[in-house]
């Protein structure tokens, strides 16, 4: 027993090591190729150059400014898109009439590529903050509303019978049965929504903004500052990873009953 578990642990460590080693190896290879000019450094600047540019941008405060602008839009977009989606999705799962009314609207609008409505959103909401927030909100709205509804529909009917028999009111059913029962799928929706939100904030900031990571990358393209483009890409990638990890942690915290199943 002991032996087996030690072996498993060391294998786990080995796997973790490999997980770290492969990107580092790739970076080293990239660096070497850039230095001996095997790859075109106009498109693929050496990682060391990108890192230097990262430090420059951090020191000048520029990266922080753009990062903060994007984060602020993401936050409000999440709030204004996510919360209504959560309430609407769960309510649609609970109420058949509401579902019949709203579901066709969602199925009709869901397939429209979110990026394709950017011009319309810019037209309606202008070049200010609200258009970016709306884009993020739209991106997060759909995965959450769809998953929340599906999550409620997946709850076994007997749980609603129990709630009714034990005298739960409408709000209590929402809070004690529908919401926690649908939570695993809702969190899946949040994960999908975060991905979509990052895509849309980048696009929206490239098209109509004077700040944000998307704007930073776009203006870098305009002056061929390739290193700065890569810095933007890296920061957005890290954001995606951190957010996904964060949701996984939240998942462990608020749906402990799904662990080990």
């Amino acid at each position: 027993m002991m032996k087996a578990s030690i072996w498993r642990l060391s294998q786990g460590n080995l796997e973790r090591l490999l997980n770290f080693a492969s990107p580092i190896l790739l970076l080293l290879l990239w660096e070497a190729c850039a230095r001996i000019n095997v790859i075109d450094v106009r498109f693929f600047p050496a990682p060391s150059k990108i890192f230097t540019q990262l430090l420059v941008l951090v020191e000048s405060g520029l990266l922080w400014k753009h990062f903060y602008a994007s984060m602020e839009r993401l936050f409000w977009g999440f709030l204004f898109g996510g919360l209504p989606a959560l309430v609407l999705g769960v309510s649609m799962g609970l109420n058949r009439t509401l579902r019949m009314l709203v579901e066709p609207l969602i199925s009709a609008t869901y397939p429209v590529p979110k990026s394709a409505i950017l011009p319309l959103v810019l037209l309606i909401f202008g070049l200010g903050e609200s258009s970016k927030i709306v884009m993020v909100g739209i991106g997060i709205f759909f995965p959450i509303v769809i998953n929340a509804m599906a999550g409620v529909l997946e709850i076994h009917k007997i749980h609603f019978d129990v709630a009714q028999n034990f005298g739960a009111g409408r709000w209590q059913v929402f809070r004690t049965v529908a919401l926690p029962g649908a939570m695993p799928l809702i969190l899946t929706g949040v994960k999908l929504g975060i991905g979509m939100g990052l895509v849309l904030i980048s696009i929206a900031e490239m098209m109509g903004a004077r700040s944000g990571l998307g704007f930073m990358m776009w203006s870098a393209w305009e002056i061929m500052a390739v290193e700065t483009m890569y810095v933007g890409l890296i920061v957005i990638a890290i954001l995606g990873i951190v957010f996904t990890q964060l949701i996984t942690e939240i998942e462990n915290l608020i749906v402990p009953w799904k662990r080990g199943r």
Partner: protein
Amino acid sequence: MSDVKIRLHGLSKIFQTRDGDFTALEPMNLEIPTGCFFMIVGPSGCGKTTLLRILAGLENPSSGTLEITKPAAGRPSNSMVFQGDSLFPWMTVFENAAYGLRMRHRPEGEIRDVVGHYLQRTGLARFHRSYPHQLSGGMRQRVSIARAFSNDPDILLMDEPFSALDEQNKILLQEELLRIWEETRKTVMFITHSVDEAVTLGDRIMIMTAHPGRAKQIVDVPFERPRRVLELRARPEYGELVYSIWGHLRDEVQRARALDEGRAS
């Protein structure tokens, strides 16, 4: 045991289905005295669950009236122990057992005392922080019983609560249920397809016919209380009663089977 707790008058249930009306329950008259441990046995599909769901307020009768004596202010009229897995997987054992009291906004101190008592009585005190998926089927059903008793209802409704358990667990839980019930002597309406269970637990047994569901016979169980399950089962009168009830039930089970086969072919 003199006053009547539940009175059904011409109560019936007809479901509208795609193939036309389906009579689950023919008009039924029934009186259940306060404090009676009332058993319903019948073949599957005899409408016994439908009857219980009507009493629980989860289903409306198609005709007839249902009178239930109102409980003292603030107490719930009934709580149901459901068939199968009815615990909320997202709540701990304690939260599940406390559900009814929480829904009625009882003070936390009272909830802790009452729920603690019934978790103790069902042998679950150690597991109050576990989640249902960490428990065995028998333990989950005990939580379900603790949940119903903690809610302190006027009437307990039990829908084949032990049917999914193995024989050993079933006997242990029956003893536990009887012990807890002795403390309060609530009116109980208990559905089962097991004649043994009906005779072991009940004061009075209603035998139902295969569909449409109808009361065929009501039998009084003469055994004194408190009862010990295994001692009771060793007595010759016990065997005789089980045998005579089987006599009433056998025709119904065969009729139900014939109906099923007719539908299947």
